[in-house]
């Protein structure tokens, strides 16, 4: 197959600076040459290809929109483009980077003490340490404020009890950002791997996001020193602030997956001959699918390019991010499913990408706020009446 070129019907590339263009190109090449050759095997085995982690660090793709502590301080447009290119490879790769950057490094950066930042951020940026973010519990997904995990104040520290589930990077993580109920409301804690009373269990049997590590985290009288509290966390809203960062990246990432599927379907349709020696691309119903894909990719791009500007100027709202996450993931999964159809029976083989993207996007549709929860966030924004409480 020819090298991935990206979809750019409305010449969004003209809006990029030299640096942004070069960053996009670099990540695109990196995904093509370093990541994709590893992917099929990892996906079949149901593992994240961990050998890619130091390379992600070396390139500067972990926490790239943070400044200082060995982070490059990119703007949010460049950060978005990175997510797009990573997810063009696989949602599992983008998930790894999103969790590390937006859900681990960002909370340490935003809510952590100076010592915590110095200790963890450079290592996480270099990919020398892996992080995870534990908010969801077996009984609390869409409604995290109901969480049962508790941290009790002790002399000089905290005692953590509870369980987290569906935690990306959970079994690989050297450091976990854990959200727990305390007498002062929900707070965030750092829990290092290997602490007594802390165990992880890899989750098996996933039919989606297979090239990603997903785990349960179990805390049983796990003692934490006071310095492991993220001192500036203050309620579930602190956790939601991290999610806004990650959701922003997902809105971009989904476009990458959609582009991969659109390109694959377009190329395939031109070469596949059915009925009277004609390529299937000449049939109207196939063209309709391709036209839908191009239209929705282009609209999704328009959303995130403006969203990036809003975020860079510091005025973006959580519900603006919700709209983009909801829209872009929803259309990306539709595009992936249609692309799979265009590929016919071949489309169900892992020689091709579209079905893998479609399966992955089932997770992306659910995590970081399900599609319907984002609908309700927008409903609340429009009407002023929350439908979820």
């Amino acid at each position, binding site marked *: 197959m020819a*090298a991935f070129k990206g979809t750019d019907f409305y010449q969004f590339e003209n809006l990029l600076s030299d*640096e942004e263009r070069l*960053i996009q190109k670099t990540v695109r090449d*990196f995904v093509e040459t370093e990541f994709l050759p590893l992917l099929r095997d990892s996906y079949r085995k149901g593992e994240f290809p961990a050998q890619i982690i130091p390379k992600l660090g070396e*390139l500067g*793709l972990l926490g*790239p929109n943070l400044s200082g502590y060995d982070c*490059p301080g*990119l703007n949010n447009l460049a950060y978005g483009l990175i997510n797009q290119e990573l997810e063009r490879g696989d949602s599992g790769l983008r998930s790894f980077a999103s969790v590390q950057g937006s859900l681990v490094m960002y909370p340490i950066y935003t809510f952590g003490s100076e010592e915590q930042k110095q200790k963890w951020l450079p290592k996480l940026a270099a990919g020398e340490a892996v992080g995870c973010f534990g908010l969801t519990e077996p009984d609390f997904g869409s409604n995290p404020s109901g969480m049962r995990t508790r941290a009790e104040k002790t002399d000089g520290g905290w005692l953590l009890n509870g369980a987290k589930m569906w935690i990306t990077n959970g079994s690989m993580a050297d450091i976990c950002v854990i959200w727990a109920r305390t007498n002062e409301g929900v707070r965030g804690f750092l829990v290092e791997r290997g602490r007594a009373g802390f165990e992880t269990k890899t989750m098996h049997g996933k039919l989606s996001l297979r090239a990603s590590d997903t785990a349960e985290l179990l805390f049983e009288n796990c003692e934490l020193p006071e310095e492991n509290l993220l001192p500036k966390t203050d309620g579930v809203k602190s956790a939601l602030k991290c999610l806004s960062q990650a959701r922003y990246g997902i809105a971009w990432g989904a476009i990458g997956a959609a582009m991969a599927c659109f390109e694959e379907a377009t190329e395939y349709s031109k070469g596949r001959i059915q009925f009277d020696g004609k390529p299937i691309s000449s049939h109207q119903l196939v063209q309709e699918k391709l036209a839908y894909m191009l239209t929705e990719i282009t609209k999704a791009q328009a959303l995130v390019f403006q969203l990036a500007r809003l975020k860079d100027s510091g005025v973006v709202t959580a519900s603006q991010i919700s709209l983009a996450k909801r829209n872009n993931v929803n259309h990306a999964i539709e595009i992936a499913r249609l692309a799979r159809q265009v590929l016919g029976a071949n489309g169900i083989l892992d020689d091709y990408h579209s079905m893998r993207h479609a399966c992955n996007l089932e997770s992306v549709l659910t995590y970081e706020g399900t599609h319907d929860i984002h609908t309700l966030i927008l409903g609340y924004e429009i009407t002023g009446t929350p439908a979820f409480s």
Partner: protein
Amino acid sequence: MKIIVCLKQVPVKDSLLKIKDDETWVHEDDLSYEINESDHYALETALRLKEEHGGEVVILTMGADRVREAIKQGLAKGAERAIHINNESFTTIDSNINAKILAAAIKTEQPDLILTGLQTDDYGSAQTGVILAEYLGLPHAGIVMEIQKQEGSIKVKRELESGWFQSVELPMPALLTIQSGINQLRYATIKGIMMAKKKEIKQPTLSDLGLSESDVAPGSSSLKFQKIYVPKKTKQTQFFEGDPKDIASQLVDKLRNEAKVF
């Protein structure tokens, strides 16, 4: 050690090429460009030599505004600064003219080593490097695969035909044309890309280089493009029809009277 690396931007490898009406070149408007493959290896080789022995790597390139992207990529990978001879009018096919311009720029720099790619992926003449060495009055070696720096000289391994290699020692300064695939290319890192923003890109004019328009105008070239075309299919396949006996006699007839094999 001061190393100059000549980088050229060429159309991306699997580009869809459309020939111009006058059949002298392809339409360039809808092409994307990338650094010429063997130039990538020249740059990588230079960066490794610098990392081992100290010094600086200077990128030299000529061409329109678009080559800034190639320059930035080189700077992001670790070159110290760049010289960009920016002029649309002499994007020429003539290696002699290209070498003359590059030589004029190199003379202002006094490098210890000049590295070029072996050949470009567009015209593929493999001439610019060697002619450049002649203009500079420097020794050169072509199709270089390995370089060892010694006291005041370098030892290089050259690729010959059919799996043969040659080891040559050259005094410095010298010019080497570098073969593709000889080392693992690095990626520009995000930090490198951000740092490249502040690096110098000098844009000398022709007169800064002691050249005039007439030295480099396409008209001064001794080469002219006659025609560019997509290779025509020349082999023809003929299918015989009929029963086997019929086909056999038709075949014998062709072999005897047309191919004249018996």
